[in-house]
Each structure stands twice: as structure tokens, then as C-alpha cells.
């Protein structure tokens, strides 16, 4: 489920970073305005709990594989969405830094996929609505059983929906990045069923643990449900600038702005410092190469079998084929490619060797210094 740096383009990565950063900022502000210092240790320790809970696996009866507790949903149920989002973000940050799950650029995407959907969509819209109906009813044996059922249904649906949305976001982000060749439909068909299964497991475990907690220490869940609603109303009357609607509008604007600016930057400025996702052709770079190494390219042109450029784009060859004599172009481009790709191969190997040599030399020198 974790996106990796290698699979996303800077435009997508930066856009998701802006979105996630503004969400973190919003949640931090919101959390700070509530009874903050009381919740600090709670948040931290529960984040650590998410790690620890992964130590305990159970065996899924039929398949024999093992399942464990997921993160976002149970945190939302226990702590409310804002704290849960911050906690999830911190868990994912630690994972990305220490286990290199995902990566630094992809961290924005990961926090959004695994934090935003369960905490801000699935929990408030699905779980809360389902459970609220029974939550205020007075205690009795029948009510208790009914409540268990509602919690189970709520957690199950919410987990499934949250994970499905997260998986869908992964597919979209990969698609927009354009690094992976997987077509939209195939990738979707791969991701969604897997995450349906994961969602069911997560939903059932979450519900079971919540019911356990509710039986053992009902006041924990009571306070979680009531404080979040209470503080919501209090906050809305206090400061209107922090209402979720404004934040959503702000985030949407920021997304469009960064996405738009970056993609414009990418398409309008295809050579030089280019943060592009569309660049597949080497034609633009040919010009810079010639500009800088004019003497080089002059000689290059004379030598027929090693002309200057390597990677040929698909679109280029197709458009060439359609416009000109296909035979001529084909044979021509064959030679071009053969020559330069050999140069690329040789040069690449040499550079790699240089790098290794530099590393070894540095190491040698260092060990000499330490010995002497």
C-alpha cells in the first residue's frame, strides 16, 4: 500500500506534500486549541501502540496467512479524527525514515492515502453515523448486544471504504506520475480486491478490539465520542477561520495551484532544470548538448556511426513514420540509436566504475589515516 519514491513524479509528490502539510497544520492547530497538553502523551504512546500491535498477529482461519491491527480507524474511534490523523502521520514518518517504507517524497502521498480517508471520510461519515444511533441508549443486556452489532457493522464498512479509497488514490497517484506502465484498469483490478480483503480483516479486528475496550472501560469510548463532538461545537463558535469547510477549500486551491504550476513548468520548460513527468524524448536536450559542446557535435556529425543522441520517443518515431518515408526514417533512426546508446552504455559503465573507485579510494585513505 505504501507508495515508493521511485514510482512518483515530483509534481505529484509535491502536490500531495502541500495537501498533507496543510492537513497537518490544520490538525495541529485544532489539537492545540483543545486540551492539548493532556493529550500529548496519549497521542505519542498510542502511535507507539500501533507499532507494538503489529507484533501480535493472529492466524486467519482459512487462508493461513496472518493478520494484524491496522492503524487509522481504531485511532479515530479512540481519539477523534484530528489526533488520529496526526498520529498516523507520525507513524508513517517513522516508517519512511527507518524502514524506508515508501520514501521521503512519497510520504505526502502515503499520509494522505492512509490517514486522510479513514480519519476524515470513513470515520465521521460512516462509523460515527452508524454508531451514534445506539450510543446514547441506556445500558441493558439487549442494548449491549445491539451496540456490539452496530460497532461491528460501522467499523467494517468504514474500514473497507477507507481502504478502498486509499487504494484508489494510490492508483490515481501512480497514473498521474506516469512512471509505471500499468494501465489504469488493470492496476485498479489488482489493488481494489486485495484491499477489500485487507479492509474486512481490519474492520473485524478494529470492531473486536473496540468492543473489548467498551466492555472493559466504557468511559474511554464515551469520552472520545463526546469530547470530539463537544470541542467541535465549541471551536466553531470560537473561531470560524478553522472550520473544516475553509480548510477543504484552501487545500483544494493549494492542490490546483501547485499541480497547475508544476505541470505548466514541466511542459513549458522542457529542457534545463526540468521537473517533468512528460519528458520521454531526448530531442530537447540535444540542443543544449550542441550548444555547449559545439566542437564535439561538429565532429560527431562527421562520424556517421556515432551520432549524438540516444533515447528516441515513441511519439516522435510514430509522427515521423506517418509524415515521411517510413523506410528511410527507420533505417536512419536505427543507426542513430545504435551509435548513441552504445555511447551511453560505455559512458554509464565508466561512470559507475569511477564512482566505485572514488568510494574505495576514500575508504582506503580514511583507513590509512585511522591506522597512522
Amino acid at each position: 500500500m505504501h507508495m515508493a519514491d521511485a514510482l512518483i513524479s515530483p509534481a505529484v509528490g509535491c502536490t500531495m506534500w502541500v495537501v498533507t502539510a496543510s492537513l497537518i497544520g490544520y490538525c495541529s492547530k485544532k489539537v492545540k486549541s483543545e486540551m492539548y497538553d493532556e493529550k500529548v502523551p496519549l497521542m505519542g504512546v498510542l502511535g507507539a501502540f500501533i507499532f507494538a500491535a503489529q507484533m501480535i498477529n493472529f492466524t486467519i482461519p482459512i487462508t493461513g496467512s496472518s493478520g494484524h491491527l491496522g492503524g487509522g480507524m481504531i485511532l479515530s474511534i479512540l481519539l477523534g479524527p484530528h489526533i488520529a490523523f496526526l498520529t498516523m502521520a507520525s507513524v508513517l514518518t517513522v516508517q519512511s525514515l527507518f524502514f524506508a517504507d515508501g520514501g521521503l517524497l512519497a510520504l505526502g502521498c502515503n499520509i494522505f492515502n492512509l490517514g486522510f480517508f479513514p480519519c476524515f471520510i470513513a470515520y465521521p461519515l460512516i462509523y460515527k453515523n452508524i454508531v451514534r444511533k445506539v450510543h446514547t441508549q441506556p445500558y441493558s443486556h439487549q442494548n449491549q448486544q445491539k451496540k456490539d452489532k452496530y460497532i461491528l457493522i460501522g467499523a467494517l464498512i468504514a474500514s473497507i471504504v477507507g481502504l478502498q479509497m486509499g487504494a484508489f488514490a494510490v492508483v490515481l497517484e501512480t497514473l498521474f506520475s506516469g512512471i509505471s506502465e500499468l494501465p489504469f484498469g488493470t492496476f485498479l483490478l489488482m489493488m481494489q480486491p486485495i484491499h477489500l480483503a485487507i479492509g474486512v480483516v481490519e474492520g473485524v479486528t478494529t470492531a473486536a478490539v473496540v468492543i473489548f475496550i467498551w466492555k472493559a472501560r466504557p468511559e474511554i469510548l464515551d469520552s472520545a465520542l463526546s469530547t470530539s463532538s463537544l470541542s467541535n461545537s465549541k471551536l466553531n463558535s470560537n473561531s470560524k477561520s478553522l472550520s473544516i469547510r475553509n480548510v477543504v477549500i484552501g487545500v483544494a486551491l493549494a492542490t490546483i495551484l501547485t499541480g497547475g504550476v508544476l505541470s505548466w513548468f514541466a511542459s513549458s520548460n522542457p529542457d534545463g532544470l526540468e521537473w517533468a513527468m512528460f519528458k520521454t524524448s531526448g530531442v530537447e536536450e540535444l540542443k543544449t548538448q550542441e550548444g555547449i559542446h559545439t566542437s564535439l557535435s561538429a565532429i560527431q556529425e562527421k562520424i556517421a556511426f556515432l551520432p549524438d543522441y540516444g533515447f528516441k520517443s515513441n511519439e516522435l518515431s510514430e509522427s515521423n513514420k506517418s509524415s515521411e518515408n517510413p523506410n528511410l526514417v527507420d533505417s536512419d533512426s536505427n543507426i542513430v540509436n545504435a551509435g548513441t546508446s552504445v555511447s551511453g552504455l560505455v559512458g554509464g559503465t565508466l561512470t559507475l566504475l569511477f564512482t566505485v573507485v572514488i568510494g574505495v579510494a576514500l575508504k582506503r585513505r580514511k583507513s590509512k589515516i585511522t591506522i597512522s
Partner: protein
Amino acid sequence: MGNLQNNLFDIFYMDTLACSKTWIHSLDPRAKVLTTLLFVGIVVSFGKYEISILIPFMLYPVIMITWANLPIIYLIKKMVLLMPFAFFIGIFNPFIDRDIILKIDLTFISLLDIARFVDLTKFIEIMGLQNSTGVIEISGGWLSFFSIMIRFSLTVSAALILISTTGFDSVCLALQKFRVPSPFIVQLMFLYRYMFVLIDEASRMVRARSLRTFDADSKMRFSLFVPMIGQLLLRTLDRAQRIHLAMCCRGFDGHIQMVRKMSFGMKEILFIAGWSFVFVMFRLYNIPLNLGILLSKLY
């Protein structure tokens, strides 16, 4: 279970690495965070078929690892363990993107005398490339696949190098200086501090259970799993309350005070400027290609 325990060991180990004393370690964390971000950003910014231009970027991990005295075998092992995700997404590229983008004429290779060192025919067989009249045809899919794998190893190694030369607390401090909201920073530090404690607790519970079962590999049933997690959660909540009281006694006001000197001096500026210059040069000029062209001409 073994997996997370290994991960825990990894964290311990990386913390010890972060405590060693080289001049890289003593740099201001902000400089290292910025350089790492720049590196990752530039590496990711290349088009999907680029391979040769990515190779010079390996200089950064290689030099940093040697300067900071990091165990290279360990880092490589760690990277290989993380490979599967990128591999499984990337491996579809060769099957879907079958357009031939790169053609290498074997006659030129024999001209360059590479064939003497590398048995290319075997390579071609393994890769399943079509071989028509001495021209190896490489599809765009294979190119982008290798590009993905190179990017992956570059970005992952950058993150690992950052954490094992800086340490988590220092990274947090740097983030704080970059105006990341303080609740998030406090949360990160807390999480990091208590992760070890709680993972220990969880593993104690698991061990206690397995000591009481009769057959060694008895499976954990769901009916047992729930109370265990529930217990752990209850203990965690109690612990949080104890911590809170203890912190209140010591005058906690919502901020973690760190007494650590951070100085952003000439060394840091040089570090950032030097690497940025190198990265931008690598980004602008395809060094391996030019080198190859030069070399083939000399030949």
C-alpha cells in the same frame, strides 16, 4: 513477529550509527535534511526512460557512506529487503510497454571490443530480447523498469543515510526549525521514545503466551488475539495517563524543551552549496553519455 523485532534491532543499530563521530555527523541536521530533499527531488525529476544520466548520482550515497563510515553491506542488505514493492510494480512495465526504444547494434559493440569482456548473447537470452540481424532491441518497458530500480535504490539510500548520520531527534529538531507545527514534532518525538517500550511490552505478551502453549507452533486464534490487543491497549492508555501526570509534575506545558546547540555555519553552507552544484551539474549534463561519445571517438 520476528520481522518487527528485526526492525527494532535495525532502529537500535541505526541509532548507534547516528552516534558515531565523523564530520558528517557533526554537521547541522538542517543542512543534511535539505541536501537529502534536494537529492530525492532531483533524482525523481528525470523522465522515465533515463538510465545513464542517473548513474552519476550514485556518487552521493557512495561518498556519504564512506565519509560517514557507514557499514555499506548492511545498508545494501536493508535496501534489498525493501525492494519487492518497487519491483512488483515495475516488473509490469516490460510486459506492457513493448515499443522498441533503444537499439544497440552488436557490430558497434564488437567495434568497441566490449564483446570480449561481456558475453552479450547470454544476456540477451536471459532478458528475452528479440535479436534480429545483430541488433539488440530493448523495449521502453525494460528501460523504465531499470530506471525505477535505480531511482528506488538512490532515494532509499538517501533516506537511510540521512537517518543514520543524523539521528531521529536531530531530524525532528531540524523540522522544528523549518516551522513544522510543534504538535506534530512533539508527537514524533513521543512516538519514537515510547515505541521501544511498547514493542517490548507486546513481545513480552506474545512470549508469555507461547510459553504457555503446548505445541510450539500453535496458531494464535482470533478469540485470543482480541483480548491480547485489548489488554495492550488498556495498558497503553494507563501508561499515557501516568506519563502525563509525571510530566505535569515536571512542568510540562505542551512543548518539549531540547537543550542542544545548533549552529549553521560555513561548513553547512559549503556542504549544501557543494552538493547542490554537483546535483545540478549532473541534472543538466548527461555525463555518462558525453563520456561515452568522447571515448568512442578516441577509439
